[in-house]
């Protein structure tokens, strides 16, 4: 428990973060910005895990563990994503989604 801050307040922040992330993922046109939006989603999730652990189950550790793994995997994901984005830039001379559209149904 953190004095003066209730669980709901933090949850409002993380929920906002999550949906800003989803919104950014859907409307942004730059691949790097899309990647940043997805990081926002993952970060909101790790805050969620830590907060639930701290406020609801202070004796357990599972939430903290999960948050650490989410951070680590997000880093790996960003590394591969940026490598592919660099390759996309070399191929298409742009990282804009509108230009990366060789295949459509």
């Amino acid at each position, binding site marked *: 428990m953190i004095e003066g801050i209730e669980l709901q307040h933090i949850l409002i922040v993380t929920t906002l973060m*999550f949906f800003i*992330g*989803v919104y950014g*993922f859907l409307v942004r046109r730059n*691949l790097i910005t*899309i*990647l940043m939006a*997805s990081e926002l*989603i*993952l970060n*909101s*999730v790790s805050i*969620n*895990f830590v907060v*639930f*652990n701290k406020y*609801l*189950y202070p004796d*357990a550790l*599972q*939430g903290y*563990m*999960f948050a650490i*793994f*989410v951070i680590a*995997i997000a880093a*790996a*994901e960003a590394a*591969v*994503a940026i*490598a*592919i*984005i660099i*390759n*996309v830039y070399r*191929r*298409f001379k742009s990282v804009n989604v509108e230009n*990366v*559209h*060789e*295949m*459509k*149904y």
Partner: protein
Amino acid sequence: MNLHSFLLMRHELVLIAIMLIVLIAELATKDNRKSIIAPLALVLFGIHTVIGFLPMESGTLFGGMFNATPINNIMKNILNIGVLIILFQTQKTFDSELNRGKVSEYFIVLFSTLIGMFYMISAGDFLMFYIGLEIATIPLAALAAFNRHENKSAEAGIKLLLSSTLSSGILLYGLSMLYAANGSLFFTDLMHGTYTITSLHTLTLIFFFAGMAFKISLVPFHLWAADVYEGAPVNVTSYLSVISKGSAVFIFTVVLYTVFKNYAETWQPMMYIIAIFTMLVGNLFALRQNNLKRFLAFSSIAQAGFLLLGIIAGSAVGMATVIYYVLVYVFSNLAAFGVVSMIESHTGKTTISDLNGFYRTNPKLSLALMLALFSLAGIPPVAGFFGKFFLFTAVASVNTTPYHILLLIALLNTIISLYYYLMPVKAMFINKNESPIAYFKSDVFAKIGLSISLTGMVVVGFVSSIYEEILKFCFGL
């Protein structure tokens, strides 16, 4: 826990050893001898596949995070067989100038995705499940973008990676809510916990469902599938559509039948609607495709819809039919992809209209493709018929009107699918063509791969003990 119990992880341990051996072989061989790495990986993986079939005890590791049960073992063996066939088909792609330098990379990345899937299947805890899922998907994106010099491949890689990031983010958000509601993420705790089902649980279920539906490419989360399948190298496409999808279906079934057992009233109607739409959209979009890879992509979306029928049934029989259907699907889809990849690597042709008159020049390959498509469509002599038959039986055994309607819709979809599966067959056998694809001689490895899948397609259909063996270890809701 003693050292002996690590043997429960033998699939994963042997695969890690193979990865290290391939890495050392890469360091130890000279630049002009790199071509031996591909056969080396094949032989090692063959040994691994055989080891997988040795009898093994069941148990748990890491305080219940890792389950080794007979049914998990069967699932892993099915995936092993599929990967073995893909490795046979892959052998000759490394002869080309562009790919010669990256042989070992390909195999190391491929095996690491497979390790991820194995951990995911064996997970007894959502942390292990998530780690396995990510180990499986992140390298897959690298594999899809493997042809560095092709625009389409880069596009496929980035599409796969970004959409899977979003889906796993959604899934994780659901899991965090599950943690809030239950205070534990172990499957056994979640299964046996005494709690009333609140709307928080329903939210969890929906988020989890959405995340997994991305991986299995169910409608409305299927939009990435066709693009990625078309852009990725053809062997990676077959890996994506068979192994990756199969493993996701396995763990999805297990989680729904254990963790979300008490919510069956909530997830069954959801699955019901999604199954209908997946079958319909997959089939209707497949009708208008001319590119063979896109065609197979939409056909695999429709097949995923059929797989959901088995999951909806919610009985031990339902689970057994899902696993059996994946086994059949592995053989038939890999046979189809085997022929498609042979055609593409020898002639560069990728569309259905290119197949016109193919029978005149390459009769054996056209027969193989015909059998594979018959099996996918479910025409009797081959295993696909038995797969569909068992699935429909599982649904019909739940004796209520909505399930009968579902069965009817599924049957109608089979008829639609017959139409488009027969289009390539018609192109090969009936359509006239002045200049059909010339005769080519395919390499011996690809031939072995194709014959394994064709034999499997016939044998799995007729040896009913395979189904009984699977059913023995399955469990219902």
